[in-house]
C-alpha cells in the first residue's frame, strides 16, 4: 500500500457529543478516535441508540461535536463555518441515509443530478454523469421514474448514485439497509461490495452483520464508545458471497 493510501481521508480525535447538562447530561458519543484511509471500507456496528448515527453526522459535518476534532483530507472541519461545511459536503463527502431521503417530486435522474447542480456543474454534464451512475447501479431505464414508482432497494440505489455524483473522498452510509426487505438488502449489499472493490472509501454505520462482513474493518460501539475493532482479512471479508451466492 502506498504512502498516500495510508494517509487517512477521515480522522477524528477525542470526539465527543453531549446533550443536556448537570444530572441530565447525556454523552451520545464519548471520546472517539478513528482513522479511515483512502480506499478503506469501515463498518461501525452497535445496538440502536449507541451513538452510531450521531458519530456519522459529526464526521460528515452535519452536526458539530461538543469536543474533539475531525479532519477530512487533513483539514479541520469541526471548527469551520457553515459555508465551508456546505462546500465540504458538496465535494468531499457523500451521504446515504436509512430513509433514502429522495425528493418525491423529482425523478431518479433529477434526484441524482441535484447534488452535482449544487456543486456548480453545468446542467448537461450533471445529467450525463447522473445517467451514467444510474446505469452503474443497475437502474438503466428507470431514470425518469419518480421515487414513489421505485422499490425500496431501487430508491437506495438512487441515493447511492447521488452520493457518488461529485466523486467524494468518502461516502458515509447510515443504516443503508435498515428500511429494506431481504431482496432489496441483497441489491444494496452487492452495490456496496462493488464500491468497495472500486476503491471508494466508505464508512458504514449498520447493525447488519452482512454489510459489516463486506468491509475491511469492523468497529463495535456501545454507549457512545468504541468497544472492539476487528480487521477483516481476505479470509473473512467478502462474506457477501455466502449470502448472495457465487454469481455475486
Amino acid at each position: 500500500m502506498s504512502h498516500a493510501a495510508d494517509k487517512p481521508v477521515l480522522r477524528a480525535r477525542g470526539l465527543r457529543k453531549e446533550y443536556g447538562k448537570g444530572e441530565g447530561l447525556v454523552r451520545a458519543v464519548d471520546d472517539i478516535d478513528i482513522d479511515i484511509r483512502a480506499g478503506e471500507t469501515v463498518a461501525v456496528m452497535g445496538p440502536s441508540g449507541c451513538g452510531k448515527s450521531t458519530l456519522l453526522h459529526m464526521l460528515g459535518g452535519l452536526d458539530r461535536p461538543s469536543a474533539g476534532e475531525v479532519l477530512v483530507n487533513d483539514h479541520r472541519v469541526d471548527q469551520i463555518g457553515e459555508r465551508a461545511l456546505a462546500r465540504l459536503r458538496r465535494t468531499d463527502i457523500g451521504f446515504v441515509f436509512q430513509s433514502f431521503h429522495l425528493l418525491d417530486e423529482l425523478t431518479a435522474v433529477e434526484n441524482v443530478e441535484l447534488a452535482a447542480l449544487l456543486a456548480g456543474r453545468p446542467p448537461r454534464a450533471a445529467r450525463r454523469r447522473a445517467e451514467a451512475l444510474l446505469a452503474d447501479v443497475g437502474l438503466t431505464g428507470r431514470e425518469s421514474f419518480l421515487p414513489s414508482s421505485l422499490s425500496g432497494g431501487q430508491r437506495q440505489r438512487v441515493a447511492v448514485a447521488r452520493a457518488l455524483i461529485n466523486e467524494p473522498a468518502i461516502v458515509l452510509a447510515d443504516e443503508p439497509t435498515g428500511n429494506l426487505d431481504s431482496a432489496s438488502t441483497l441489491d444494496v449489499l452487492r452495490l456496496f461490495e462493488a464500491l468497495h472493490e472500486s476503491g471508494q472509501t466508505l464508512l458504514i454505520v449498520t447493525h447488519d452483520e452482512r454489510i459489516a462482513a463486506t468491509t475491511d474493518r469492523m468497529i463495535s460501539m456501545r454507549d457512545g464508545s468504541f468497544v472492539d475493532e476487528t480487521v477483516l482479512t481476505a479470509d473473512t471479508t467478502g462474506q457477501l458471497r455466502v449470502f448472495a451466492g457465487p454469481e455475486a
Partner: protein
Amino acid sequence: MGRMLLVSRLAMRDLRRRRAEAALLLLCVLAATTTLTLALVLHDAASDPYQRTRAITKGPDVVATGPLSRLETLSGASGVAGHSGPFPVTAAKLRTSSSKTSDVQAVGRDSNAATVDQPLLTDGAWAGPNGVVLEAAFARALDVGVGDQVTLAGRSFSVTGVAITASSAPYPGSLCLVPRGCVTGSTEGAPAGVLRNPGLVWLTRADVMSVAQKADNQFAVLNLKLADPDGAQAFIDANGGRGPRALPMHPWQNILGDATELAHDSQILLFIGTWLLALLAVASLSVLVGGRMADQTRRVGLLKAVGATPGLVAAVLVAEYVMVAVSAAGGGLAIGTFTAPLLTGSSAGLIGGAGTPSVTLPTIVWVITAALAVAVIATAAPAVRAARSSTVDALADAPRPPRRMRRLTAVSSRLPIPLLLALRLAVRRPRRVLLGIAIVLITVSGIYVLLILNTYLGTQELSGGYGAAQVEVLRHVLLVWSVILLSLAAVNTIAITWATVLDNRHASALVRALGATPAQMTTALVGAQVLPALLGAVLGVFPGGPVLFHLINAIAGGAGDRATLPTPWQATALIAAVLVVVAALTAVPARVGGRRPVTETL
C-alpha cells in the same frame, strides 16, 4: 356534553401550545372584523343620527328661503301640515375671541318653541338679546363654547348655547339660506360676495335685523311640515315656481344626503376595504391553517388511534378557529366602536354622531357571523382532509406529496443555485403560490387605489366638494384602511413564509446535507416568496388597481375621469417597494428555516 367538553379542551390546549400561530390567526380575523365594524357603524352614522335628530327637533320636510312676502303665501299652500317662520336671515362675518373668522348665516328666532324645526340645545340656553346659539359642528370647528364672546358684523355677542338641527346639514355642509349664494368645500375660484363655508347661528329676530346687511333685507327662511313627507320634491315642483323667480326650496331628503355625505363616502371606502381585508383574512387563514395542518398530522393520527371519529377530529380543528374567530369578533367590535368617532366628523351636528357611535344588535350579529364564516370557510376543507386521512400515515407523519412540475424543474436546473432552489420550493405547493400571488395582488390593488385617493384629496382643485376638515376625516379613513391592509398583508407574508419553512424542512435539510449553504437556503426561501410577490405586484398594478378603482367609482358614483392615476414610474416604484418589503419580511423566518440544524430533521 362530554363530547363538547372534550372538543373544547383539545382545541384550547392546542391553541395554548401554539401561541404565536394563534396570535397570528387572531390578528388576521381581528383586522377584518374591525374594518367591518367600522363600515357598519358608519353605515348607521350615514342615516340613523340624522333621522333621530329630525325626529327630536321636529325637522322640516321642506326648507324654503326667499322674500318674506312670498314665503308667507307658501305657508298656506296645499299639502302643508304645519310650519315655523318665516324667520329673518342674514349673512355676517363672525370673529371669535381667538381671532378665528368665518362667514355665517344668522337666523332670527322667537324665544318660544317652534312646532317645526326647534333646534335642540346640547349645551347652554336659547338665545336672548345679545346672545347667540351656534350649530354644534360649527362650534366645534371654531372651538367655541358657552360663555365665549364672539362678534357678528362688528357687534359683540355672548355664546349662550350650542344646538343641533335637522333643517340644515352640519357645518361645513350648511344649507345656503341667503340670496348672495354660498360655496362649501373648496373655495378657490369662488366668486366675490358669496359666503364661503358659512356656519349657522341663531339670534333673536331683533338682533338679526340689527346686524342684517342691506342685500339680505326682507329675506327669510320658512320651515314646512308636509302631510306627505315623502312627497317633498313633488311639493317643491308644484309650488316653487320656475325660472328666475323660482323660490329656493330644499327637501329633507337632500339635507339628509348633505348631512351624511362624508359618512357615506367613508362608509363606501371602508366597505370596499372590508371586502379586501376579508379576502386577505381568508387567504391568511388558509395559509396558517394549511401550515398548522402540516404540523398537526401526527396529532390527528394520535386522536384517531385512540378512537376519535373523523367527525370529532374535524370538530376539534374547526373549534380552534371558531374560538379565535369569536375572540377576534369581540375585539373587532370594541376597536371599531372606539375608532369610529375619528371617522364620523361630519355628523358632529347630529344626535348619535361623533363620540357616540351606535353599535346595534344587527352590527354585532353581522360581525360575529362574518368572523365565523371566515373561520369555517378557511378551516373546513383542511379539517375534513385531516380527519379523513389514513391513521397509519398520519402517525408516521407522512407529508402530503409535493407537486411535480416537470418543465419548471428542467428550466430551474439552468438557474443559479438560490434561484434553482427557490423555484423548486415554490412550485412544490402551487396552491400556496396562488395564495401568495392573491395576497400581494389584493394588497397592491388597495395601495394603488389609496395612491389615487390620496392624490385626489391632496389636490385642491380636484377635492371638489370637500373642505379641509372633510379631507382630514377622509384621510383618517384612508389611514385606517392603509394600516389594516398593510398589517394584514405583512402578517400574511410572514405566515406564508413560515408555512413554507415548515412544509419544506425535510427538503431543506436534505439539500443542506447535499451541500447547499444556509445562506443559499435562506435566499431560496426568500426567493420562493418574492417570485409570486413579483407576479402579484405586477397584476396588482395592472389590471388589479384600475379595476378596483373603477369598482369603487361605480359603487360611489364618483367621477373617475377626474382622478390622477399613478405614473408608470410610481407604479414601478410600488412594485419594487413591494418586493423589497416582502424580502425583508420573509428574511427572518427564512433565516430561521435556512439555518435549522440538518440532523434535527434527517
